[in-house]
């Protein structure tokens, strides 16, 4: 995508994917677009890394996949969030928030 996109902090790809899937079942391309659109292009996930993460998350049981039909009436693989995935997402977001708060507590007075 755009060259000025921010590189992603390791591990946040997972959180972004899970967050995307809270909107409902999505295929890989849809998730990629959603992240790009929601961050108004500020964040970009490389497609290769996205798919690796998807399959890894599926193995861990955080997401599930099912073949369905895309808007363009094409066969596509849709991912949905599992109950474990939802719990994991909540925990990760809370942890990230604490991390950010701590970071900014130090950085803000400056």
């Amino acid at each position, binding site marked *: 995508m755009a060259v000025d996109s921010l590189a992603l902090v390791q591990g946040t790809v997972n959180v972004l994917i899970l967050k995307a899937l809270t909107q409902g079942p999505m*295929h890989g391309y849809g998730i990629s677009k959603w992240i790009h659109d929601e961050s108004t292009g500020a964040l970009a996930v490389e*497609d*290769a*890394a996205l798919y*690796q993460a998807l*399959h890894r998350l599926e193995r861990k049981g955080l997401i599930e996949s099912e073949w369905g*039909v895309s808007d363009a009436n094409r066969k596509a693989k849709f991912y949905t969030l599992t109950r474990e995935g939802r719990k994991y997402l909540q925990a990760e977001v809370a942890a990230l928030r604490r991390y950010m708060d701590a970071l900014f507590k130090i950085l803000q007075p400056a």
Partner: protein
Amino acid sequence: MNDSERLHRRRQFRFPWRSRRQVAEELEAELAFHIDASAADLVAKGWSDAAARSEAVRRFGDMDYTGAYCRREDARREQEKRRTTMLDELWQDLTFAFRSMRSSRGFTTAALLTLALGIGANTAVFSVVHGVLLDPLPFHDAGQLVRVFHAQPSSGNLRGAVSEPDFLDWRESSRTAASMGAYFFADGLSGVDLTGAGDPERLSAALVTDGFFQTLGTAAILGRTLATEEHLEGRNRVVVLSHGFWTRRFAADPSIVGRTIRLDGDPFEVAGVMPPGFTYPATQAIDVWIPLSNLGPEAIPRGRDVHFLSVVARLGPGVTAAQLHDEVGGLAARLSRQFVENAGWDGVTVVGLRDTIVGDVRRPLFVLSVAVALLLVIAGVNVASLLLARASGRQRELAVRAALGAGRGRIARQLLTESLTLAAIGGALGVALGQLGVRALLASGSDILPWAADIRLDGFVLTVALVTSLAVGLVFGLVPTMRATRDLDPTLRAGARGSVGSGQRVRSALVVCEVALAVMLVIGAGLVTKSFARLSAVDLGFRSQNALVATFSVGSSHQGEERLTYVESVLEAVRALPGVQAAGSIRDLPLLGNGEVNRPTVPGRSDALGEPPAVQVHHVSTDFFQAIGTPLKSGRSFSLMDRDGTPSVTVVNEEAARRLWPGQDAVGKTVLLGSTEVRVVGVVGDIRQRGVAEPVDPAMYLHLHQNFRNRISLVVRVTGDASSYAGLVRQAIWSKDPHQTITSVTMLDDVLGRVTARPRLLAWLLSVFGAVGLTLGVLGIFGVQAYAVNQRRQEIGVRVALGAPLRSVVLLIVGRGMLLAGAGLVLGLGGAALLAGSLRAVLFGIEPLDAWTFAQVSGALLGAALLASWLPARRGLAIDPVSALRYD
């Protein structure tokens, strides 16, 4: 929409897991979709088709690595899923199996009991077979070890003992034997007195020659075995201890080697201790091995005519038993021509060592193994039949499950899990039962089984039991499972009426098998039981009731003439006890020893009669025949006037009188034993000396006062219960010599009981197995009949409603049961006729194809079958036609 629906449908019929290829294909489709979608968006932004495509691929990044990564993740996921699915399903099946077992208690109890009986009996018998027949002998390279017997074919004696000079000649000249050794051992009879530290004790001892330990090739665990020079006079006061004796008497003290213990009053140096399990030549327990040279010629003369040694040899490298037989047999033939004492001893018999030890038990154990195997099959068939009955009762349940989407394989797996669970629990119960069985067997059979100590439920036996159980569950669960899953669909449509047909046919076939096997088992049991009854009815030639036997050896503290006065004083002391009717002694008690074998010369015997037969020579005191209860047929018995210095006299048994002087009166005749002229003064009845089932040998009795022997078996005839005299007799002996060790005090009845223990045990076990088999078979008929009546309620109701006489309905039902029983009986009789031949070796006084036994068993079976078919039929009669027609 259409497309998605088709996809959806395909998913349902897909395997629960994906193959490697499917995984790869799906991934490829997923990534292709991404590239296409990405390119399509670019085209929408104005890119050309080709440029958009290559841009999409570029933006994706490392396609190859990602593909490989995703495939690996997917493969792992599939694997985990597969595992958990299988575990889930197994768990499901197991809990379901337990639930359905609990819900049908009657069925479960019947099946478990049946299995436990079948597997229990097999486990018990197999433990014994394993311990006795299959465990390796505790010797180095035991397959090379043989026993060599001296044979005198002319007298039918093929397994004779060997004289010391002959043994020495054989060992000297044999080239086929790598080594050869000999021993003198008689269970409970060859022994030495241990004195000194602690209580005096009679030890079970084997007297061995040089070569004994070398041949067996077992090393001592402590110290050493006997060296060649330690068999020489003057250096032979050395002893090797058994592990059991060492532990029992010396608390396994390792410093025992080199110490001195007193045996028969003489100091013996302990050379070493043998490993546990090495008890040869005893099969149960032995205490010590000492050099044979310690037993002087005054105890056992060493002429070529004194056969007392057992010979064991190790085959040389590459030498067969047949080669050794030819070589040593040739030697024996040459010696028999060379020495007059060896006349007729012109051959040898060579037998593998294991065969000589387990030879007598192999056949009974084989018979038992076949019996329990039959029992197991009956049990399995019974359980299969039960499962089948239950499966047809469950056909609706299964059909519903199938309709709800359970695959045929899934249902089959469920049913098999149930039968395997049943088998596993039944097997566990069976092992517990088998453990009890082994204990019971050992309690009643420990003296009659070699290596009884080795018999236990070990890992190997348990594994066999487990595999057997599972095999039974699988094999006998398969038939009902296949039947139950075959016509799942029609059942639901046909309602309850659909299930009468072929399931019933399979069950009937199973019942026929069951009855056939039970018949075979019961016939075997009948034959062996009758054989035992005949064995018990044999006239032994003596009365075993109300008689007590005390065995001891006159020790070295008594010498010369004094030995006679000592034994006589003991006899007098015992006779003086109130209630004692008579007391006398013999060297070898009947059934426990064969005396000394000798070949007398009969002056004036006509050549036409051929060589006189070999006779057993027994050394007895006065009153022996009275004490043991053998009648004097003519002449007189011994008196104290027959002593050293008066003419040598003998009493012969009827067999000897008949064989030595056919058609004449034996009393007054003379014979030569060696060079001694002996006059016959009396004839007594025949005693079965060699064994209950063995023919009577010619026997000559000599008076103790003319031919002394150390070993004394005191026979005491009393009024009333003999066992209450044991203490009194002991005291009487000790009143004459407080240091006298007494080997054993038993009832003569017990001696006989031990000898007949094996056939009795076999008869008892087979009877139990036969009864269980018969019960299962009859229950099988009952089950299939009761089920048929239940299934045919409507038909019976209709018949009765239409006015069929009750009798014809009963006949219809009973006839069907009898048909099954009859078919099973015919098959069983055929099978029994085929198998009975293998029983011949354990039968006494009865032919394997005893028609009367076959007829009795047939009658008993038909009677039982009639009852088993009639009871359900009677229930069928009670069916009210109206309710039967309304039913369902």
